[in-house]
Each structure stands twice: as C-alpha cells, then as structure tokens.
C-alpha cells in the first residue's frame, strides 16, 4: 500500500463486499482514505474486504445497510461518520440485476432494479451532498454501466436504471459544481464479477481489447475521479470497457 497522506473525513462505498465495490474500497484505502464498506447481506465478504484493507495498513469498517431503506441510509451515514468523520467521497456501487424480456418482466423485478440501482443512489447522494456542499469539497462517483447507453436484451430495467444514473449524475454535477463538489459516473463494460459471470461468450468477442476488464480496472478510474487532481472533471461518464462502446 502506498504511503499516501491520510485525508480528513472518509469515503463510503456502497455494495463494497465483493467485485467492483470491493476493489474500489481497496483502491481508495490505498490512496489514504478511511473507508465505510457498506454491504447488504454478504457479511463474510465485507469482513474480508475490511481485512484486506487493514492488512495493507488502511482503515475500514463494514456497515450492514440496505440502501433502498431510507432509515438504514441515515443509520449508515451515522455509523460511518462516528467512526471516521464526514463522508467526503461517495461511491454509489450497490446494484442488482433481475433480467427478463420486457414482455414478461414482472413489476417487482422492475421496481427492485430501479429502487436499488437508481433511487437508492439518489437517496444516498442527497444525504452525502448535504455535508459536501458545506465542506466545499466532495467527490461522488456513480457506478453505471455500458448497458443503458447501449441496449442489451433482457435488461430493460437495468438499462433504464443505469441510463437514469448517468442523467442524474450530469444534473446533480452542475447543481453543486460551484461548491467544489464533483459528480461523475463510470460505465464499466464486461467486467469479471459475480454479476457478469454468465454474460461473457459472444459479448467478449465484441470487445476490442479481447479481454474482460477487472474490478481493478474500474477501481483505478474511481480513484482518479475521487482524487484532488480530478477537481475540474464533473458531470462526465468514464467508459471502462476495453473499447466496446467506441
């Protein structure tokens, strides 16, 4: 781990027990941030994420919270703030999939994906911004997807949520830009995670880089967007997709 200087305040990563979220948590910890590692159900993986960070000399705390529940979001922030101070970096990574063709996609599958991937991200962002605008500094990174900007059969709910997340990113970015708060999105392509385990095959052949990305590829971009140096980057979407959307 780097000898990066420690920051005042901390970073909160939602859905950080595994995959991209865990990699981002590790990357931000290496950059000197104390990390709130949010998870909903996978306590042992969240504990592993925290252990990896601590073993490398970083500070992290696992906090169980379902970000679709407003009272749990408030409790999440309270717990993280008590441990590490104000949340100055927020990474909205918590996400779910529930695929089906639109013709047979149920209301509950639609609602679940929109609630978690879009509405919860808004709710968590709103809470974080209340602190960030007062601090005159903040970094919000929304983990979107190339699905949304691109179509994908069976993912009308997921695409709608992720496209909405990108649109939300742009508008909130210009609302808070003058306060030193940046809001950006990352659009990963085919990344090796549990969520995409059964997706590759034909899609992989379409990736110009001829490989799936890694969670660390995405984490590197999140760390850049969270950095002091990225202060003039806001409202943007960074595609991390091996050229798939080029």
């Amino acid at each position, binding site marked *: 781990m780097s000898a990066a200087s420690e920051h005042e305040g901390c970073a909160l990563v939602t859905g950080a027990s595994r995959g991209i979220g865990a990699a981002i948590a590790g990357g931000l910890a290496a950059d000197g941030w104390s990390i709130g590692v949010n998870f909903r159900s996978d306590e042992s993986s969240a504990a592993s994420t925290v252990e990896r960070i601590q073993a490398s000399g970083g500070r992290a705390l696992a906090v169980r919270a379902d970000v679709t529940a407003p009272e749990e979001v408030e409790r999440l922030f309270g717990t993280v703030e008590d441990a590490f101070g104000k949340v100055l970096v927020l990474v909205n990574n918590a996400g779910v999939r529930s695929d089906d063709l639109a013709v047979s996609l149920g209301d509950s599958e639609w609602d679940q994906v929109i609630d978690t991937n879009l509405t919860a991200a808004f709710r968590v962002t709103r809470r974080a911004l*209340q602190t960030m*605008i*007062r601090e005159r500094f903040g970094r919000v990174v929304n983990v979107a997807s190339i699905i949304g900007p691109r179509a994908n059969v069976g993912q009308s709910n997921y695409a709608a949520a992720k496209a909405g997340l990108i649109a939300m990113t742009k508008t909130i970015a210009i*609302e*808070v830009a*003058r*306060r030193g708060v940046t809001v950006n999105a990352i659009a990963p392509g085919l990344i090796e995670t549990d969520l995409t385990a059964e997706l590759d095959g034909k899609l992989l052949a379409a990736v110009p880089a001829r490989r799936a990305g890694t969670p660390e590829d995405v984490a590197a971009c999140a760390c850049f967007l969270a950095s002091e140096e990225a202060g003039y980057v806001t409202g943007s979407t960074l595609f991390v997709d091996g050229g798939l959307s080029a």
Partner: protein
Amino acid sequence: MSTAVTEEQIEQVVVESLESFGADPEQISRKATLEQLDIDSLDLAELSQIVQERFDVELKGSDVAEVKTVDDAIKLISTSV
C-alpha cells in the same frame, strides 16, 4: 429553544451565512435582493440546512423559493421558529 430565538439572532445567522456563500458584506442589507448578492437556489438550500441546525426548524422548499430579499429570508425564519 424556539421561544428564545430573537430576530436579531436570526439576522446574524442569515448575514453570516450569506457572507460564507460569497456575498459582499458591504452589499448585505435587509432590502438587498438575493440576485444583487449573487445568492442562488443552492445557497438557499444550504441556508435552510443551517437554519435547521441552529434553530431546529424545517423550512418548506416552496416557501424558500418565494424568498427574494434578505428581509424575506429573515421574516420567513422568524415566522417558522
């Protein structure tokens, strides 16, 4: 604490807040418009947060949207505490 809040206390908090948002202290008066002071809707949202913390009162967004002058802001808060 609401009964103990005076208009002078409210005015002090409003003026301090406007200065922290970048308004020119010499331009701040009860009659000054928020437009003259370059105070925008995000500033008003932040002022609402500060008022909530200091006076434990939640201002309605629709009422805050009607605020045009420093005096409007002070009166809105005064009638809300």
